[in-house]
């Protein structure tokens, strides 16, 4: 019985393998432990199950895609990207629309896919604090983070505008659900930047990378910082005295996009459909502390309750957060970044 089962499985695999033998996709991602996790949880198993041959590369982001598309020499079929830069690339006309007749997103969180990019993992931009300074009762809201009298101490904040204005806006008293409406004008953006300006003397560092904000907390260089949750988890594992909260954090995601003129467009859609399934996404948290974008991945039993409690996209944590609005970034990021730069250089 068991033997025939295996036999049937191997013939089935061989059959699909034979069918798809000439199908290949080239995927570019960010390399390092992130791509390794993607590779182990998503790419390799999906390649084995579909028979699609996967070639992996690393790349330098959407500026690489722009170069390929504008020169007509597109070699990449799928690229992993931050949601914001994907939205901008889409607005610029660098990406092909995704075929949601092929890719099933019916069990996805509604904000975690767009016409041009389908979510691959979820992370949060949170505020973290040093437990040596504040104990376990650190800041519990953006208002606390910006309150230098209630929580005296040095801060670190992002050196770019992405993920920097929402918290500041909430700290001025705007409700989480109204943040992007309030930011939908230059005046609104200036209000948020003014809030950051008001505590600029307390901001010791404007960080530029995830490795940096993790290190700042590890070294005790600052008492509080904003940053990406996974990095703080890793810093904590390395012995840093750091805690963070998901309350009012920004729920953001990385996604997969297909460059316009990709050589294997149809296979790319097919492959994206495969890796978006819950049975692949539920393996991702084993390799990196980023959550699935497909809600159904929480129901397969692969993700333990303990793991789930720490993931940004677990239903309980997601409910406390503000989903990042890609429309807002597509419309305002360039202008907002220039305005932010004024504040940084003052």
């Amino acid at each position, binding site marked *: 019985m068991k033997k025939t089962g295996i036999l049937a499985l191997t013939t089935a695999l061989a059959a699909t393998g034979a069918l798809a033998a000439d199908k290949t996709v080239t995927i570019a991602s960010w390399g390092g432990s992130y791509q390794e996790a993607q590779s182990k949880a998503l790419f390799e198993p999906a390649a084995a199950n579909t028979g699609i041959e996967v070639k992996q590369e690393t790349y330098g982001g959407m500026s690489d895609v722009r170069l390929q598309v504008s020169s007509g020499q597109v070699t990449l079929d799928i690229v992993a990207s931050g949601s914001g830069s994907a939205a901008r690339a889409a607005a610029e006309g660098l990406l092909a629309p995704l075929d949601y007749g092929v890719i099933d997103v019916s069990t996805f969180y509604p904000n975690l896919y767009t016409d041009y990019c389908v979510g691959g993992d979820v992370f949060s931009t949170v505020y973290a604090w040093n437990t040596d300074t504040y104990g376990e009762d650190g800041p519990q809201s953006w208002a606390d983070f910006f309150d230098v009298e209630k929580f005296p101490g040095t801060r670190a904040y992002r050196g770019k505008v992405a993920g920097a204005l929402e918290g500041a806006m909430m700290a001025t008293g705007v409700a989480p659900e109204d943040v992007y409406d309030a930011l939908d004008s230059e005046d609104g953006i200036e209000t948020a930047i003014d809030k950051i300006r008001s505590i600029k003397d307390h901001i*010791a*560092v404007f960080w*530029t990378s995830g490795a940096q904000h993790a290190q700042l907390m590890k070294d005790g260089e600052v008492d509080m910082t904003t940053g990406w949750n996974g990095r703080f988890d890793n810093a904590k594992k390395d012995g840093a005295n750091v805690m963070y909260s998901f309350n009012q954090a920004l729920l953001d995601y990385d996604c997969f996009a297909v460059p316009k003129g990709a050589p294997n467009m149809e296979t790319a859609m097919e492959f994206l459909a495969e890796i978006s399934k819950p049975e692949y996404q539920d393996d991702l948290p084993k390799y990196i502390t980023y959550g699935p974008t497909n809600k159904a991945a929480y129901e397969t039993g692969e993700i333990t309750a303990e793991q789930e409690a720490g993931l940004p996209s677990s239903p309980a944590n997601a409910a406390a957060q503000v989903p990042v609005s890609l429309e807002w970034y597509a419309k305002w990021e360039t202008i907002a970044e220039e305005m932010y730069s004024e504040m940084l250089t003052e």
Partner: protein
Amino acid sequence: MNQDGLRLDERLERLKLFGLASPAILLILVILVVPVGWLFYVSFVGADGSYSLENYERMWKRRSYARIFRTTFEVSFLTTGLCILIGYPLAYFIAGLPGRLANLCLITVLLPFWTSLLVRTYAWLVLLQKRGLVNEWAISLGLWDEPIKIVHNMTGNLIGMVHIMLPFLILPVYGAMRAINQDYMKAAANLGASPRRAFWTVFFPLTLPGLFAGSLMVFILCLGFFVTPAVLGGGKVIMVSMKIVSNIELFVNWGAASALGVVLLVLTVAILWVASRFLNLENMTAGGGH
């Protein structure tokens, strides 16, 4: 007849020399003239792909750009100045040592030069941060009570950059000093000059070519610094190179970043031109003893 023959020879000679130089000329054309020309061209292409001045207008309208250029030149001038203040006396000291000791000292100057810039920059971060070695030792020795801020700001950035740039100044200055005939100093003393006067009227002017060559090199290299201000400046010291990178990521057209490169190039050439009017750079850098 004879004269014509000579002239022909001369022309042939020149052609031959040109032939010998042509690989270098071609190389310069391909790796310098063409890309810089391309950079100029791209900087005039707007977001919609047509000719446009928008990349330059943006720099004019937003105050941040002027501030970033000011920071870049401020950092470069300060670094050059500090390198001169620290490097010149050190080179003088080494030049006065006997041969073997001088070599040993030169090796200690050169050693960090061979270490990765990234490693040295992060090493400074470890030393200078709030709970870094400098603060901890100073506090335990009672020099100050609270950790002082010596990194993630202009101070930290300057410390890192001066350390990295010092060998570029010391080496040409040291070369110039070693080439000075010691008899000049004896002659000056013989003519009744005090050591101080002999130094300022004889020795110092002879080291100027090396000093200017070194300072120029330090200044120009500083203008393009990226890693050190990014790591030690704490996001508050923003130099042009950092803005170029962020503009490449931010804007849909390469022109937004190219225009920054063009302005930096033009400003640098302008500054060197003004300097050459006052300082006669050619004599000062070419006549030196190294």
